[in-house]
């Protein structure tokens, strides 16, 4: 069966299978029957000829022994009424033709020449059209002559044709019955298969394993249905367990997510705490120094300016001493707020000491730097700070600035800016002083 045939429907397969089996069986049986029939008919014709020779031998014995050809012919003539017998020849003891009747259509195949070498009482030759039989004629236990009969194979052919036709008819009837049987079997086999198929499609579409097939028979299909039911039950049971596990897992995931979120928030808080100053929310010293390192590195690479503003609040100790530490903290917060608000977006503002601040300005030459510093100073100076209800104060700041394409260390840069700040303090405070590289 080729791969194409595997795609045929079961019905076609059944019809093919049964028809083929029936045809093969019938061909074998018909062939066997025809061969048997042929052999049987051949045997029958030979036996008939032997009987004929025996009977004729008695009847024609006298005419043969007393050389009466006419009587011999007359005795034999009725035998030719059998249209299958075409030719009869009588030979004397010496094998010479005594007389013959009928027509020797198969003249060349006469067996007369075999008489001299005849070892058995009967000889025969057979071809498609004739069976030629040569038998010895005995009378009173003596060989008195030989009888040759040529019989056509028409009777055998006719019989075989009849048998072949009968076989063909039987074959057709059998094939018809086989097809009916195949259709019946198809229903018998396919109904449970389709039921199973429907159930499987239902499972696939609806994911509903709470299903049960009722077996209609106790055969293999019944077992298949039972196994299907067990499978569906097991899957259903497993699904329920999985569903429960899923719920637990979801709960676990949600909880974990929340915990992770909390942890992340805490981490963020820690991170902020680690990088910012708790009071002012500005970068703390360590973090602004890290940023400073990074800015110097980039400015060196890009050969760009970097600007530094160092500032502190003038007479801040006096604020603490006269207004209290709480007021000092408010002042620090307010100043930090002004610095943050008035610096540029790209600038980094950090608190590096009690009242000391550092502002790092990206790509800023001294002119830009001075402009920013003055703006800061002015805004702080103008700011009225309320440190308690109905209690206000004002502070000022001194600033040291420096800008360069960095070819010196961070510490040297800070020193230059710090020196400039010192200079601003020394020269009257509330002012901006530009640093100089020594």
């Amino acid at each position, binding site marked *: 069966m080729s791969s194409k045939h595997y795609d045929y429907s079961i019905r076609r397969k059944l019809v093919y299978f049964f028809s083929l089996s029936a045809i093969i069986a019938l061909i074998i049986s018909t062939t066997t029957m025809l061969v048997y029939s042929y052999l049987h008919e051949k045997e029958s014709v030979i036996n008939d000829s032997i009987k004929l020779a025996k009977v004729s031998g008695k*009847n024609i*014995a*006298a005419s043969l*022994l*007393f*050389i009466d050809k006419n009587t011999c012919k007359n005795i034999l003539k009725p035998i030719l009424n059998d249209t299958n017998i075409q030719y009869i020849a009588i030979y004397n003891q010496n094998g010479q033709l005594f007389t013959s009747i009928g027509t020797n259509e198969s003249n060349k195949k006469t067996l007369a020449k075999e008489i001299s070498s005849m070892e058995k009482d009967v000889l025969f030759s057979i071809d498609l059209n004739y069976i030629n039989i040569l038998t010895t004629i005995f*009378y*009173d236990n*003596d060989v008195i002559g030989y009888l040759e009969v040529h019989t056509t194979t028409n009777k055998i052919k006719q019989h075989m044709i009849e048998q072949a036709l009968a076989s063909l008819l039987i074959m057709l009837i059998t094939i018809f019955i086989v097809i009916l049987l195949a259709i019946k079997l198809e229903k018998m086999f396919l109904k449970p298969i389709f039921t199973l198929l429907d159930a499987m499609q239902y499972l696939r579409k609806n994911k509903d394993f709470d299903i049960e097939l009722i077996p209609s028979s106790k055969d293999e299909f019944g077992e298949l249905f039972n196994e299907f039911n067990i499978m569906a039950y097991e899957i259903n049971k497993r699904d329920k367990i999985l569903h429960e596990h899923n719920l637990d897992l979801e709960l676990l995931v949600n909880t974990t997510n929340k915990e992770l979120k909390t942890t992340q928030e805490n981490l963020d808080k820690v991170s902020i705490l680690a990088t910012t100053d708790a009071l002012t929310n500005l970068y703390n010293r360590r973090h602004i120094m890290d940023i400073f390192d990074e800015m110097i590195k980039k400015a060196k690479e890009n050969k760009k300016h970097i600007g530094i503003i160092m500032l502190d609040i003038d007479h801040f100790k006096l604020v603490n001493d006269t207004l209290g530490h709480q007021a000092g903290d408010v002042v620090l917060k307010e100043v930090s707020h002004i610095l943050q608000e008035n610096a540029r977006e790209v600038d980094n503002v950090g608190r590096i000491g009690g009242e000391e601040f550092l502002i790092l300005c990206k790509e800023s030459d001294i002119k830009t730097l001075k402009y920013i510093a003055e703006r800061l100073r002015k805004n702080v100076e103008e700011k009225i700070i309320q440190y308690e209800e109905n209690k206000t104060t004002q502070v000022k700041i001194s600033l040291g600035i420096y800008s360069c394409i960095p070819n010196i260390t961070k510490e040297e840069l800070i020193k230059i800016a710090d020196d400039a700040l010192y200079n601003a303090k020394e020269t009257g405070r509330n002012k901006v002083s530009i640093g100089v590289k020594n």
Partner: protein
Amino acid sequence: MKTVYILLIAFIIPLFASNQERDLQAVFLGRFAKFIEWPQNNRDVFTITLINENPFEDLLDKLYIGKTIHGKKIKIKYVTDVKDIGLSDILFITLDDQKDVGKVIKYAQKHSILTISEQRGFAQRGGIIQLGFVMQKPYLVINYDSATKSKIKISSSLLAIAQDVIKEEAE
């Protein structure tokens, strides 16, 4: 016409029997035995007797001595008188005198002897087989009634080749 032809043949046969026909006649004497059934007897020889002349010379001796018919050794006997016939199975008659022929036939009927002769009218006179030849082919007249009187049974096969069978019932 057929009767005239038969009568003509019957006259000619004895007069012109050729040597070949004589040979056939000798062979046929023995062959007749195959188609004849004699009453049971205890004889251990099968006797062929020739009465009167012997037209076969030594041919019968050559053909039959040392051979058997119906399992019995063949004996050839030549006699001239009816008294000498004795116990025979086949009697070939060449007598010319019809009176003598009648006596022989009577004797033969009494002793169940198959009588054969080539004489014309032999079967009509009570002989059993009249054996003649026409164109070297056998011409047989069989007296069935005579055979019956002699308690001899003749095979239908032999009767079938007879040109004439004398049988009262048939007539």
